[in-house]
């Protein structure tokens, strides 16, 4: 899928300061070596299985299926992974790679805090130093995760610049990387940024679709009709899609955060409202104004509150292989509450965007159709914010 220059169609590339070029070249060379190294893969599989708890369950949501009255719904339970989200898949891979490269320090950006927690976790496990950049606004929205990261031994730096959210955390992590490269690996959390990050992160997350395929084969003896996942940068979505890209009959649906609606300025739906641009090391679609200034995006979900989308998603959109729909705050909150009541599963507010879209399309599909929804993370972290959204002030 990627060509030699890290392009997905016209998207991707390496639009970064010269200071970082040798670092990404070194990373690419190391990755190309270790991805085919049996010892590396054995170690990573052992970490996935013994530490993260893989494979994650593919759960038949019988009550939800009956309630919606249409397609059969399966939930891919990435929320059951250690640290409570799919982020650990990528982080274990990158931390192991960084360690092999002789790096002793991990830095990361985080939005909702899930990637920060996962990075802090891997750093603790592997005895590495860890610094996490998090928008100041998000440190307030996700105070519990800030505490978790500090508990795990990481330093959390609140980022005050710009809109003080995920994009600013990425910018600050990139700035930090340019100032300290020798001993530091930037553990990027999504399928974005300069090549080779979109490829590396996708490869480590592709375990999700590999498992879905095997598990559904075992349970149903066939492929799903649709795979649905939420998309911010797009790591759980590309992980859920990857092994189905070649199966034309499987609909791949990414759910973007529409915030208060794609016809408002308070949205983070990049494919639905953005246009082609160059930012954070990649060419892709971005929410921006007519002069290319990056837009201050909004979503109730800190993890989807990002003005861009990974280059491979931009390419899957261009080719029509995947569809990208917008889901509002309201719809996501409803789905969050619905899944809790119906299945006894509290999904991350990010994942609730995918649940919301499944609730729209499942009733219109025949009963012999199968939908897989990736529950990218657990929703404990969101409970206080959703309570506030419903007008109830609770303390974490």
């Amino acid at each position: 899928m990627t060509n030699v220059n890290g392009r997905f169609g016209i998207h991707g590339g390496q639009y970064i300061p010269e200071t970082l070029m040798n670092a990404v070249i070194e990373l690419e060379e190391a990755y190309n070596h270790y991805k085919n190294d049996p010892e590396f893969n054995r170690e990573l599989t052992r970490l996935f299985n013994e530490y993260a708890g893989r494979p994650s369950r593919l759960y038949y949501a019988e009550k939800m299926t009956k309630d919606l009255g249409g397609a059969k719904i399966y939930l891919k339970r990435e929320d059951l992974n250690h640290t409570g989200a799919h982020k650990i898949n990528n982080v274990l891979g990158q931390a192991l790679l960084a360690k092999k490269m002789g790096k002793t320090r991990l830095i990361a950006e985080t939005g909702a805090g899930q990637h920060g927690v996962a990075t802090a976790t891997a750093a603790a496990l592997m005895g590495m130093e860890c610094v996490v950049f998090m928008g100041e606004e998000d440190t307030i929205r996700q105070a519990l995760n800030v505490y978790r990261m500090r508990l795990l031994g990481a330093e959390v730096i609140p980022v005050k610049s710009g809109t003080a959210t995920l994009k600013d955390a990425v910018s600050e992590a990139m700035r930090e990387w340019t100032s300290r490269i020798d001993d530091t690996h930037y553990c990027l959390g999504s399928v974005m940024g300069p090549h080779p990050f979109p490829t590396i992160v996708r490869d480590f997350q592709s375990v999700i679709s590999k498992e879905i395929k095997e598990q559904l084969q075992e349970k149903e003896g066939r492929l799903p009709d649709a795979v649905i996942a939420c998309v911010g940068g797009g790591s759980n979505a590309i992980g859920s899609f990857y092994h189905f890209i070649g199966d034309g009959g499987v609909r791949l649906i990414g759910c973007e955060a529409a915030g208060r609606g794609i016809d408002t300025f308070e949205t983070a739906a990049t494919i639905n409202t953005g246009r082609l641009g160059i930012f954070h090391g990649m060419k892709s679609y971005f929410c921006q104004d007519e002069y290319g200034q990056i837009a201050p995006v909004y979503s109730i979900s800190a993890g989807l509150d990002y003005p861009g989308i990974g280059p491979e998603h931009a390419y899957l959109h261009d080719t029509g292989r995947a569809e990208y729909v917008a889901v509002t705050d309201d719809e996501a909150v409803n789905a969050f509450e619905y899944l809790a009541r119906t299945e006894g599963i509290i999904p991350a507010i990010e994942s609730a965007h995918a649940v919301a879209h499944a609730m729209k399309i499942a009733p219109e599909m025949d009963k012999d159709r199968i939908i897989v929804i990736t529950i990218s993370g657990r929703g404990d972290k969101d409970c206080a914010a959703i309570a506030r959204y419903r007008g109830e002030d609770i303390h974490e």
Partner: protein
Amino acid sequence: MSRIREAFAGGKAFIPFITCGDPDLDTTLAAVKACAENGADLIELGIPFSDPTAEGPVIQGANLRALRGGVTTDKIFELVRNLRREVTVPMVFMTYANVVFSYGAERFISTCREIGMDGLILPDLPFEEKEEFLDVCHKYGIDLISLIAPTSQNRIAMIAREAEGFIYVVSSLGVTGTRSEIKTDLASIVEVIRASTDTPCAIGFGISTPEQARKMAGIADGAIVGSAIIKILEKYGKDAPPYVGEYVKSMKDAVRQAEG
């Protein structure tokens, strides 16, 4: 010879940087004139970007102040038209790839030519991605400036061989901003550059004092100063231009002392 190279023909060059529209475009106009009148050999005009990832806090602040003031690419083109009535010193834009890409490369770069700009510096456009704008730059005679960093090592000669206008040597790791000490072995980097090309090179990032400027101009062909000037603009606001002029004069005197 491009006008940028001419800027280096008369000895060691001093190159000030100003973010357009900080605090407003009238002040920028007066500050750029003050730079030109006080010996600047080449002037970098920053087009603000919402998320300037190569900048430290000082220039980030200038970008945000300018954008909040309502500055746009079109208004900056108008500023340059006004400047060019009096200022003949070569000038280059310094901005981010998306500002050019989003405006339309052809439309942006042809306008640069029309209004009398000489070059373009894009810190997020490394050697591997320069094809994005290079053909259009050549079509309109705009030099696309290459940057070389302390981490460039085996890349220095490759970049230098294809460089045009001048080479921007980044003095230190990290982002823009004043530094008390510059530790990189810049003499070795400049030595590789000189063995690969006759394109002049100037050192930037972290320079604020005349002593640093003299030292850097002694190693390379010139010195670039941004954050220190932005600090003057931040301190004096609309009254800054004479102070900027005075500072530029002291820095130009310092780089002259580096001439053997």
